[in-house]
């Protein structure tokens, strides 16, 4: 039954009109506003509520989607055509040569996606044996240096290579034809191919002279050996064969000739385990050098008096040997008869001893030669037959060149790896000479002091972009290969010379092509082909042999020549007058110019890693300074932070900062060269004004360059300057942080120095067992031999590169905020021969004052005297990084668990979780945690390599770049551990000991750092943890550190002497 309709919707329905009935047939009785919706015209005006909501919803969604994408899109695009051997995420390693200096250490370059990101020592290299110094490590960043020139330059504006080549060749050809002299000025070149090329160049342009000079001259040794033995070479020194080394100011562990090689050998001979003798090291010096700080006996001397002491040593030994002494008017002995002591030590080890001198005076070096000869050291510890080629410059050549240049004798001058306007005392002569020359070309990669004066700069590649070879020692051939295509439009200097001398290869005519030397297409780099040709003549005549040499980084299988005893050809009394003139006036102060361990000769001093590496002794960064002895400072009323003017004759440096250096000999001051670089072209040259250039003080009397200058005056001026130091407290306060003993004691009892009673250890926490599924897991640990560590700081730089540690600059270091994950703590102990401090006083530790208060008492009592206790200091170096405590104080206090303990014993930082309360750093007893006070990347206030796209290419992609506000610290290179584990797992084998190495360990030239799995009973670190010398720093805190140190052993009579 139909329901009766009670209500109706309208009149139409009640009356049932026609229209109504018609409309009822449609689904939608009213017309739909479709036209309005679909028409675009009045959309906004006619929108109803629903439409409004739709539009509103769409707009909000669209705006928020648009707003969600504030960062630029960065695509990760796979290789379209994958280069052979490059797999994203997998590193490639190439053996090559470090080009930071002419020492030519072998290096292994790590590249990622075609970018070199790390240099380590090449373990196959007979020179460096796997070590690489701080400077070498840092030199990789100079590849990504924004100051590099991006192409050839003519008088300050860019030109094309073709144009440059055309005009240069025209001019050279014309000059050669007319006999106008051409000078090719270079640093030491010992590359066989480079030398051959120069010969070819000289044959093409016949008026060419090749002049070699080194920024730091070893001309004294070269000349002395020429005079004494007829060989103008630097011999090979074998520290590993010596039982006694006496050095007069030669910093062989820091900067002298080949420090990595010497440190390797020296530290090997310092191993006390099972040794009957270790290399007793006696150092006479003015500045406290790295070597002096590691010497068993260090005697301060006034270096301008060196001739007297060297002659005294000779005469002592001559007396013992019964041969004629040198008759010199002046004679002398150092306080305490130390020359006599040294003579006795040497005489006892005749044939296994060594005497060296850092002097550049040929006469002094001749006496040193005579001493070594009478000690029978030639043929055993000193080898003239397998000599070094690392430095070949002769000072008289440079002197002659500078005079000739000034007189306009050269029409053309080419500077190759030479910057005489900066690093010689003849700057004005060269400036004038370059102006007079019709053609001046520099191959420098940056617009350095010399290059910016030259007409043309034909920028050479960085050494990591170049093919090269080297023969640093007779018979040791090394190969260098490019690890990246040239970053800029640069061309290797060798190739420029080849191009100008029109040396080219034609496979159809070249005789070597037929021997199968050129299997490659001839569009290969010309110098590569040239090297192959040269090497073919050296017995590497097949592709296989060449490729093996390329793989190894050189040809190291040649048999060394038998080292012979040379005959001595100098009548010693004939050089007496020359020795006498070298002696400085007693009442005048000596200026000792030295090289800082990382800045060295200053070639790479715009490198932020190099500048931020603290000096091992003073811990100063970013500046050179006048190193002042305490007595002189007191006498002149100068203290740290003051400024002085330094004057020698007509030359002076104004407003130099001062550092009162313990160990600096009285009446001497030290000043580092290598600072005060200046460049000119363009806006580049941000690194101007780091320190001041001290090369102008080099003494050039008798045509040589002498780095010991008698007669310097210093004058205090108004003003103050704070040096940026990373360590400001210098005494150890009598704490047992560094343990040491004497070699004699050690031989009696290997636990000597480390046999204090064990503290009672308690812990609140569970003891960790480092097991996985019941089986021993890895437990990563490290052992550091304090007896090997020299403080050279290679580890500091290596760690910074490996772990993307930011450079913070001078101002932040002054605020004590350097970011280094590993540092080398250096402590002084002041010798108290005069008994200034009461022996019963608690400030007194044996014969040495180790406490601040004791030093203050001694200083007060010593007023008016020579402050001998400041001159005679004992030094220890202690590398310090995160100790990866088993019971870590930092871990318990973090409120958000950002720092935790791994199952493999690592104390790990989760940067993403860190909120930066900094409590962990406060609670760290070792003070190794570093906080990101600012954002150190992409920040114009920190305009170092993290602030430009080029510099960022050196970043290690395996390690996070930390953001502002988080804590960071040593991770024991966890990225390497993971990589090693993954590799072993893929190869279905256990990880072998030594397979994973930390960056610091790889860099260490002294092999002081050993890393490994202490749970593996066969690992080296496990054995070292069981060593009698092994101890933990602050063991009484029961932090159960995973880093243990080995007691320092000094080869001295007793530890208090």
């Amino acid at each position, binding site marked *: 039954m139909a329901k009766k309709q009670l209500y109706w919707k309208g009149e139409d329905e009640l009356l049932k009109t026609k229209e109504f009935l018609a409309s009822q047939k449609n689904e939608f009785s009213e017309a739909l506003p479709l036209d309005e919706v679909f028409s675009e015209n009045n959309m906004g005006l006619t929108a109803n509520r629903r439409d409004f909501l739709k539009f509103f919803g769409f707009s909000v969604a669209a705006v928020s989607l648009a707003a969600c994408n504030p960062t630029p899109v960065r695509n990760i695009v796979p290789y379209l055509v994958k280069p052979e051997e490059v797999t994203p995420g997998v590193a490639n390693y190439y053996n090559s040569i470090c080009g930071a200096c002419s020492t030519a250490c072998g290096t292994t370059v790590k590249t990622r996606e075609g970018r070199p990101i790390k240099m380590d020592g090449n373990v196959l290299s007979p020179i460096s044996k796997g070590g690489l110094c701080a400077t070498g490590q840092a030199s990789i960043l100079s590849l990504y240096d924004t100051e590099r020139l991006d192409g050839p330059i003519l008088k300050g504006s860019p030109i094309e290579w073709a144009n440059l080549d055309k005009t240069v060749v025209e001019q050279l050809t014309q000059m050669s034809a007319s006999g106008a002299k051409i000078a090719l000025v270079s640093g030491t070149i010992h590359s066989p191919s480079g030398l051959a090329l120069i010969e070819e160049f000289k044959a093409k342009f016949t008026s060419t002279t090749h002049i070699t000079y080194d920024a730091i001259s070893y001309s004294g040794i070269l000349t002395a050996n020429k005079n004494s033995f007829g060989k103008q070479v630097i011999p090979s020194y074998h520290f590993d064969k010596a039982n006694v080394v006496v050095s007069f100011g030669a910093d062989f562990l820091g900067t002298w000739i080949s420090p990595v090689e010497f440190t390797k050998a020296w530290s090997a001979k310092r191993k006390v385990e099972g040794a009957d003798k270790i290399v007793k090291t006696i150092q006479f010096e003015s500045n406290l050098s790295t070597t002096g700080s590691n010497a068993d006996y260090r005697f301060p001397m006034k270096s301008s008096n060196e001739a007297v002491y060297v002659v005294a040593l000779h005469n002592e030994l001559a007396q013992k040997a019964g041969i004629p002494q040198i008759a010199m008017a002046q004679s002398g002995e150092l306080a305490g008869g130390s020359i006599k002591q040294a003579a006795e030590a040497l005489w006892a080890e005749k044939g296994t001893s060594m005497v060296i001198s850092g002097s550049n005076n040929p006469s002094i070096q001749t006496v040193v030669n005579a001493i070594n000869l009478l000690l029978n050291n030639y043929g055993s510890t000193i080898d003239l037959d397998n000599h070094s080629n690392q430095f070949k410059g002769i000072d008289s050549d440079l002197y002659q060149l500078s005079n000739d240049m000034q007189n306009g004798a050269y029409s053309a001058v080419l500077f190759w790896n030479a910057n005489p306007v900066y690093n010689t005392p003849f700057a004005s002569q060269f400036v004038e000479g370059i102006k007079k020359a019709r053609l001046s070309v520099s191959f420098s990669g940056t617009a350095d002091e010399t290059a910016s004066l030259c007409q043309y700069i034909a920028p050479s590649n960085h050494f990591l972009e170049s093919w090269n070879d080297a023969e640093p020692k007779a018979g040791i051939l090394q190969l260098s290969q490019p690890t990246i295509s040239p970053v800029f439009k640069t061309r290797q200097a060798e190739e420029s010379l080849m191009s100008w001398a029109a040396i080219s290869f034609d496979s159809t005519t070249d005789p070597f092509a037929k021997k199968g030397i050129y299997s490659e297409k001839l569009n290969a780099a010309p110098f590569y082909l040239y090297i192959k040709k040269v090497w073919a003549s050296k017995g590497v005549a097949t592709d296989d042999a060449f490729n093996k040499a390329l793989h190894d980084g050189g040809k190291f299988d040649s048999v060394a020549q038998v080292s012979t005893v040379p005959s001595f050809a100098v009548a010693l009394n004939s050089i007496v007058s020359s020795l006498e003139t070298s002696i400085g006036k007693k009442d005048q102060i000596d200026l000792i110019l030295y090289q800082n361990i990382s800045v060295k000769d200053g070639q790479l001093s715009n490198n932020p890693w190099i500048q931020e590496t603290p000096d091992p002794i003073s811990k100063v960064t970013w500046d050179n300074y006048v190193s002042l002895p305490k007595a002189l400072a007191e006498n002149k009323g100068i203290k740290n932070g003051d400024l002085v003017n330094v004057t020698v004759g007509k030359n002076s440096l104004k407003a130099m900062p001062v550092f009162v250096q313990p160990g600096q000999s009285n009446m001497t001051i030290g000043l580092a060269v290598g600072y005060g670089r200046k460049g000119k072209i363009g806006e580049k040259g941000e690194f101007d004004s780091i320190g001041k250039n001290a090369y102008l003080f080099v003494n050039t009397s008798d045509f040589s360059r002498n780095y010991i200058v008698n007669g310097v005056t210093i004058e205090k001026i108004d003003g103050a300057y704070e040096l940026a130091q990373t*360590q*400001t*407290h*210098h*005494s*150890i*306060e*009598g*704490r047992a*942080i560094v343990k040491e003993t004497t070699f004699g004691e050690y031989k009696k009892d290997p636990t000597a120095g480390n046999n204090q009673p064990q503290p009672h250890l308690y812990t609140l926490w569970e003891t960790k067992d480092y097991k996985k599924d019941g089986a021993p897991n890895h437990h990563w640990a490290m052992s550091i031999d304090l007896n090997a560590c020299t403080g050279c700081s290679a580890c500091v730089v290596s760690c910074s590169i490996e772990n993307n540690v930011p450079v913070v600059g001078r101002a*932040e270091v002054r*605020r*004590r*905020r*350097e970011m280094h994950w590993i*540092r080398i*703590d*250096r*402590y002084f102990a002041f010798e108290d021969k005069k008994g200034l401090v009461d022996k019963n006083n608690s400030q007194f530790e044996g014969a040495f004052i180790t406490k601040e208060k004791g030093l203050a008492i001694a200083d007060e009592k010593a007023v008016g005297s020579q402050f001998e206790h400041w001159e005679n200091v004992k030094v220890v170096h*202690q590398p*310090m990084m995160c100790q990866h405590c088993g019971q870590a*104080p930092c871990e*318990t*206090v*973090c*409120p*958000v*668990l950002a720092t935790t303990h791994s199952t493999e014993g690592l104390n790990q930082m989760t940067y993403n*979780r*860190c*909120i*930066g*309360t*900094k*409590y962990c*750093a*406060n*609670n760290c*007893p*070792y*003070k190794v*945690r*570093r*906080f*990101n*006070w*600012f*954002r150190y990347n992409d920040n114009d206030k920190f305009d170092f390599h993290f602030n430009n796209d080029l510099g960022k290419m050196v970043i290690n992609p395996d390690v996070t770049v930390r*953001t*502002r*506000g*988080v*804590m960071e610290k040593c991770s024991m290179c966890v990225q390497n551990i993971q990589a090693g584990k993954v590799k072993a797992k893929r190869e279905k084998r256990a990880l072998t000991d030594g397979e994973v190495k930390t960056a610091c360990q790889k860099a260490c030239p002294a092999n002081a750092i050993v890393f490994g799995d202490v749970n593996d009973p066969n690992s080296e670190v496990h054995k070292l943890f069981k060593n009698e010398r092994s101890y933990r*720093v*602050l063991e*009484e*805190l029961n932090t159960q550190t995973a880093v243990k140190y080995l007691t320092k052993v000094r080869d001295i009579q007793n530890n208090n002497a």
Partner: protein
Amino acid sequence: MIHDSAIRTQLVTGEKTLHDVTTEICRPIENKPSTSWKVGFVLSVIFLGILGLTLAITTLFGIGTWGLNKTVQWGWDITNFVFWVGIGHAGTLISAILLLFRQKWRMSINRSAEAMTIFAVMCAAVFPLFHMGRLWVGMYWVLPLPNAFGSLWGNFHSPLLWDVFAITTYFSVSLVFWYLGLIPDIATVRDRATTAGRKFWYNFFSMGWTGSVRTWNRYEVVSLILAGISTPLVLSVHTIVSMDFATSVVPGWHTTIFPPYFVAGAIFSGFGMVLTLLVIVRKVMNYQDYITIGHLEAMCKVVMLTGTMVGLAYITEFFVAAYSGVVYEQYAFINRATGPYWWAYWSMMTCNLIAPQVFWFKWARTTPWFIFMLSIVVNVGMWFERFVIIVTSLHREYLPSGWVMYSPTIIEIGIFVGTFGLFFTCFFLFSKFLPVINMSEVKSILKNRE
């Protein structure tokens, strides 16, 4: 009914009637602000602006704008934090513990003391928040909130996490307690309100207070319960703040004496600050009859007692360090007294141990201008105490290679000065808009109540 003793001195003098109390205490709320109030308020807001500016600089550029370094990673920030938290102690002590002990003299000072507590804790909170390198995540990562990281919680071993709980609990309980006590007085203001705005807002915040017997009964019960809850908090907050240091391994921090020593120091500094404020308030607002010399004298006695307690703690620390035979501990204390920061140590000793001993003399306890000066000395001394504990312990720790000096930058000084701006801005607003003396309670101790 409460029977007043005939021989005891009156807690409120001046023969006040109930009406007098109401009119006098409501006067600042109902009248236009005085010139001195305006000047003080503008000055406070300027300092508050300094706080805003310095915090903005810190947040934009980083903690590097402070003077902290690789060795001293807490400096003025945590010194100021502990300083302010310590000041925040007197309020709850006065309102809760003295309530439980039925000390009626607290009635005319507890309101302002509690207000001071709340404002001081707000100032204190600035430092732990902004000392974090990444406060934008740190603000909530320290809280045990459910999160998208899996089961990732805070580290319950960390005293910093305990701190978060301790301070937030203390702040919220103090705030509730203070507000509860305000309700009857807000209702009084509401009832007297003549303007629409005042009527609306005081009506809103009085939460429908009727003043019936039942409401008064519940009010009393809740007050007592909150007093009971607050009492342990007085002790716990500074105990836990002290554990920020005591649970570490830093020589000079790692000390079991810290909890009682810190609580005593907090009460000491809290009363010092209450004295500073009340000596001004009673003068400026003409409340000498409510906050009498008797009140000041009682508080001076507390200051003397707690000052001596902290002094005893200082000496005990030295004894324990000497007795321990631990070189690091011994050096830490010798360094405090004779090292490069000796001046801070001896300022602390002079201000906290020696200066309050003058309160043995009745004149000193009853002379307001002298009390005011001494209260400033106490505040300065307690600031130095925290500076000595934090900075001189950190700057020379275990390894001498890391020994450095620390000095604050202008930014850190600005933040500290700025927190005074925050504190006084709040206090001035409080004195303008809320009754600074608890009218309803004071009325219960009047002699002439009808």
